């Protein structure tokens, strides 16, 4: 039986790790390679590296970061942020990333998902969805949560998997940074709509939050950044807790 995955996320800007609280305030906190190794040793099942550099130099630095992380890491990792072409995907996958994650560019040009899936295989293509509750459903946002699109999150989830996405990284903008638990309703709505694995993101705070998103929403993986990053809890502690709760983890 497949285990539920715990996925720490590293936001990387100009080669350094930072973490956005509600996508706004950023705090510099370290070397991505050191942190990636630390999480690997702690029992993380996978990592996500999100490049939030704006500059061209930052993008170049990211390819180097990916190469070093791939050399040091013994678990799979996904790279996202600013990937706009098949060529961008190729550069990151060649540097050793296992998967690439598309967000804004996939909404701007959905064909990019299909092209990526045909070229590299669906298992390499993750579509990241930033969703926000509007009172009756969830809207999809782009540009790091600054721009609202016309897409409904559940519809976009279905559409992107039809185009070839092999996995969805679903972030609740309502919950992100709140530390009061994952968005169960959103995760469940998307989980029920698609066949590919869904990584729930946004809202991780307590140990019980992780058990809840696996039990109540049947998420395949749970992503967290700040709770691990600022050592409020550890990957090892989360996995120990889940094991004791009877959730199947590695």
């Amino acid at each position, binding site marked *: 039986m497949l285990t539920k995955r715990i996925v720490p996320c590293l936001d990387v800007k100009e080669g350094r790790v930072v973490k956005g609280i509600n996508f706004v305030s950023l705090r510099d906190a370290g070397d991505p390679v050191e942190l990636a190794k630390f999480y690997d040793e702690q*029992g993380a099942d996978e990592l996500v590296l999100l490049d939030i550099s704006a500059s061209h130099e930052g993008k170049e630095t990211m390819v180097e970061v990916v190469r070093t992380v791939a050399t040091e890491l*013994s*678990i799979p990792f996904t790279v996202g942020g600013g990937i706009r072409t098949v060529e961008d995907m190729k550069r990151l996958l060649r540097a050793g990333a*296992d998967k690439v994650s598309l967000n804004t560019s996939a909404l701007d040009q959905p064909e990019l998902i299909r092209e990526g899936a045909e070229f590299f295989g669906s298992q390499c293509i993750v579509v990241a969805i930033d969703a926000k509750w509007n009172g009756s459903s969830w809207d999809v946002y782009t540009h790091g949560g600054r721009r609202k699109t016309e897409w409904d999150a559940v519809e976009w989830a279905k559409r992107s998997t039809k185009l070839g996405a092999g996995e969805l990284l679903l972030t609740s903008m309502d919950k992100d940074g709140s530390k009061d638990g994952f968005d169960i309703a959103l995760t469940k709505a998307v989980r029920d709509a698609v066949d590919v694995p869904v990584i729930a993101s946004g809202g991780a705070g307590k140990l019980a939050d992780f058990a809840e998103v696996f039990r109540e929403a049947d998420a395949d993986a749970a992503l967290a950044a700040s709770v691990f990053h600022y050592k409020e809890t550890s990957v090892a502690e989360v996995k120990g807790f889940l094991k004791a709760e009877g959730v199947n983890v590695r």
Partner: protein
Amino acid sequence: MIVGIIDYGMGNLFSVEQALKGLGCTVILSDDVAELKRADALVLPGVGAFPDAMALLEAKELSDFILNLPDSGTPLLGICLGMQLLYEDSVEGRPTKGLGLLKGSIRRFEGKELRIPHMGWNELEFSQIPEWLKSEQEDTHVYFVHSFLAVDTDPSEVMAAASYGGYEVPGVTGDGLVTGMQFHPEKSGAFGHYLLKQWIAAVRGKRDEEVSSVSGD
């Protein structure tokens, strides 16, 4: 010790290369038979579709080279698609003949409730311990990413399997000098590293034996 990675143009070989280098191997990455012949052992990697892979192996005259490895006494490790290529045939895309070093066929997972690909960490259960492995570890979770699996296999050629949606998915397979791993050992944390380390140690042991028997003559 030299390990050759058969680079026939399918998939990302960076992680496999790094993992082998980390174990102290000199790595040759090549699609050239003359070059690969220098290696003490060969790794057949691969991500992608079976028919494309076989066509490339044949176009580059690598399939005969691979088929001859057991007779020439050279250990071979197939990883992921590379393991599937060791079997007799596959239905991926269109029916295609494989290398046929192991008995069985490659078929797609089927099942309404089944999420495909089989992607993530799953536990290997060993029915027999391969000679090169020596001993099992406590935690045997490994990282899988695949939509097709080996079926109609010879039980003596399946050492470990993982349960998924009613399937017993062959994970570690092999016969003599031929070994297959359906998962990615280079992405499977400490246990994956251990598997590669043990396989390399066995290759090294075998090579040293040959050297000493030659010098003893």
